[in-house]
């Protein structure tokens, strides 16, 4: 209730008198929650990391320079945040003005980014009765705009919280007509809208990307990724199969403000392994969609894996890179796809430029033709099982890649491995997965994670850093202006390597399997690097 007027005047007077970097006897930090809208447009990530990938390009490239290849060996853990209610954390923290925002299942926290102490905590129980990915209650983070914070819940609600208090402002159920929908992503702010997608691509939902007015929570537009009857591409979806075709949008996209275009990936088609009920290419599954953010209209699309039978989601981060390409400055899009190829596209028009195989074991296709269409081998799931490479987890996956403006190389964790794929037709049923049977690990197959460095100029692998471990990690990559590449390795360690050579320079045992992507921020002139591991979040810095 109302403040005492005298008190208000006193607080204003004190607040005005507080220096931002005070003397020893004054508070060293005054931190305002929230983010300025203009900050989201910056292509330079320094002290703040205001959105899931740091900026709209998806490069995950930090311009902070305090930590270098020379001093990173002194890197130390500064604090640990423990999430009490979550399963494994896959969140990338967002940090603005010394305040860190993280999600853990359906909970959100604001932390002092210097100490990890909780400033507020919004709590909501995990949803019961969810299936498949949604039942893991994963949340990859928040979006911020002004003093509002947005997050997705496991059952596909978009929550708007007050970033100053964690109080709930509004809550929109954005996919409640089929209980196989869920959500695991971080929303993306574009202009005055908040964009959300869903999980459930293996469970027979119809994928879509939705934009909500960030103030009112009112739906601005919804783009279905599976065409309805009579629409272009609908020949793949006889009867009501379009309602269960998958093509979900379960990772944040990227955005080019100059081209006024959003780039967003779509998942595999459903049912995953039975292509007989979805003839043709199955648009717009396993694709990249270029979308007008104002209207939600599709500008163009590029399909990585037409008629996918292997669960090769196309949701890996579409990274926006401006560089000299074949002698000309080009606006490129680079994506290391789950199907085993790294793609280069012209992001102004979607023109295919190249596809380079990066996995050593690829047998579903022999290559990609001049139009970007894979040359398939016709290996497909069978009732008795077929060995197909890459396997069901893909040759890479949702965790972050990174493009370094210091080395002009593209980095990501690759998976080497195959799966035995089976098919058995089955009808869609709400409350059950819609895989139409499954996969198993090939007992003779040695799986491995490999940190790769790809040169988009020469389309060659600059270096490979094979990882020891049990192939259970899902680790992302981040690069810095000083020529470092930070990544989660496959044996519980968080590592820093020389971005030029791949030589490991520092490692720290987090004691848990990493399923997350790193980020960097600075407070009071000190650079930190943070990453979630298991049920904890770690933040590192150089000693004082």
């Amino acid at each position, binding site marked *: *209730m109302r403040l005492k007027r005298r*008190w208000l005047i006193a607080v204003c007077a004190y607040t005005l008198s507080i220096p931002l970097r005070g003397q*020893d006897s004054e508070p060293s930090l005054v931190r305002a929650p929230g983010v300025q809208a203009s900050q989201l447009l910056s292509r330079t990530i320094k002290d703040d990391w205001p959105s899931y990938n740091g900026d709209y390009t998806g490069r995950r490239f930090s311009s902070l320079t305090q930590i270098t290849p020379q001093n990173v060996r002194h890197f130390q853990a500064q604090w640990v945040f423990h999430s009490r209610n979550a399963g494994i954390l896959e969140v990338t923290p967002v940090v603005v003005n010394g305040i860190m925002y993280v999600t853990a299942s359906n909970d959100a926290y604001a932390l002092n980014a210097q100490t990890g102490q909780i400033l507020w905590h919004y709590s909501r129980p995990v949803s019961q009765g969810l299936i498949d990915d949604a039942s893991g209650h994963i949340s990859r983070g928040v979006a911020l705009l002004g003093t509002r914070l947005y997050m997705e819940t496991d059952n596909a609600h978009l929550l708007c919280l007050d970033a100053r208090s964690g109080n*709930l*402002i509004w809550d929109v159920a954005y996919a409640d007509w089929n209980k196989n929908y869920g959500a695991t992503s971080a929303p993306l702010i574009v202009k005055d809208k908040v964009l959300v997608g869903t999980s459930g691509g293996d469970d027979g939902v119809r994928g879509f990307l939705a934009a909500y007015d960030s103030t009112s929570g009112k739906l601005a537009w919804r783009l279905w990724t599976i065409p309805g009857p009579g629409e272009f591409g609908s020949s793949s979806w006889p009867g009501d199969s379009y309602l269960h075709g998958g093509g979900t949008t379960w990772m944040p996209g990227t955005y080019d403000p100059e081209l006024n275009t959003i780039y967003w990936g779509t998942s595999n088609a459903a049912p995953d392994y039975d292509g007989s009920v979805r003839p043709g290419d199955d648009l717009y599954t396993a694709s990249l969609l270029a979308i007008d953010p104002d209207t939600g209209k599709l500008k163009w699309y590029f399909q990585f894996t037409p008629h996918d039978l292997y669960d090769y989601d196309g949701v890996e981060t579409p990274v926006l890179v401006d560089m000299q390409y074949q002698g000309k400055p080009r606006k490129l899009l680079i994506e290391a796809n789950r199907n085993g190829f790294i793609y280069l596209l012209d992001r102004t028009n979607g023109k295919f430029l190249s596809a380079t195989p990066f996995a050593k074991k690829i047998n579903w296709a022999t290559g990609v033709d001049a139009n970007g269409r894979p040359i398939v081998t016709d290996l497909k799931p069978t009732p008795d099982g077929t060995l197909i490479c890459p396997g069901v987890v893909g040759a890479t996956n949702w965790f972050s890649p990174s493009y370094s403006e210091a080395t002009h190389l593209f980095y990501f964790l690759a998976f080497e491995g195959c799966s035995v794929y089976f098919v058995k037709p089955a009808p869609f049923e709400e409350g059950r997965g819609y895989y139409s049977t499954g996969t198993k690990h090939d007992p003779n197959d040695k799986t491995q994670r490999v940190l790769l460095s790809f040169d988009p100029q020469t389309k060659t692998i600059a270096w490979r850093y094979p990882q020891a471990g049990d192939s259970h990690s899902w680790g992302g990559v981040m690069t810095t202006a000083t020529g470092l590449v930070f990544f989660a390795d496959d044996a519980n360690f968080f590592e820093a390597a020389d971005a030029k050579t791949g030589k490991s320079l520092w490692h720290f045992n987090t004691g848990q399997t990493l399923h997350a992507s790193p980020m960097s921020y600075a407070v009071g002139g000190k650079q930190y690097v943070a990453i979630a591991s298991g049920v904890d979040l770690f933040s590192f810095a150089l000693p004082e």
Partner: protein
Amino acid sequence: MMRWWHVISIRCVLLGLASITNLRAQQPASTTTAADVQGSMLFASNCGSCHGSDGRGGEHGPDIATDSDVQRLADSDLIAIAKNGVAGTGMPAFGWLGQEKLTSIVQYLRTLQRGQIDIKLPGNPKSGEALFFGRARCSECHMVNGKGGFIGSDLSLYGAAESAGQIRSVVVDPEKNLPPQKKATTVVSHTGQKFTGMLKVDDNFSVSIQTMDGNFLFFQKSQLTHIDLGSYSLMPANYGATLNDEQINDLVSYLLHVGSENSKRSPTQSSKSDRDDE
């Protein structure tokens, strides 16, 4: 055979319950069912010694009656916690009681969480709402259902766990009746500067407060000469003078009504829906 202290504690609890029932005289005794009685006895004998007979926390167990995190848990979650215990917290597993008894306990806990089942409103909640967002200016600091300020508590569920008398006492005399954690903290630096806000962090080395403008201030305790935790209420102290009795009743009624309505809604239900699917 039941141990003597169990017998005493059950008697005490039942006496306590009887007195609570008397205080809440609006609720006719005839509405109490056999299941309620079983639930209250089971709660008293298994839960009350740690969580308090009213569920509001005791020496060994946290508040499970008014804590919104607990209130928001589904019945099935609460039953699972009671059944399996919570490793590392001292909360034992009560699986041996069986599903039926655990269900009775959770049903009884729900009545503790709701407070009074039939709320008799002392005033007009509509007029109270207008006061809350208007003349009384409560919404400058407090939020209800997504509208209002941030420095005070979100009161969307406040009325679900409090009685009319308790709410009234806080409105009229917050200085006396607000718990310390709902009051402002004041710190003084070595140079004599004084800062006041709501406490967010307090450990052996540091204090963090949030000021009215939403900013967080972080202090090392070594920087401070004086720390007054939960020192005084930021609420106006003069509602008793600026609002008449009827208006205070209206305000109380609004908080009771909105709290009760919100507590009926599952946390997974959204405040909005936009089913535009095809």
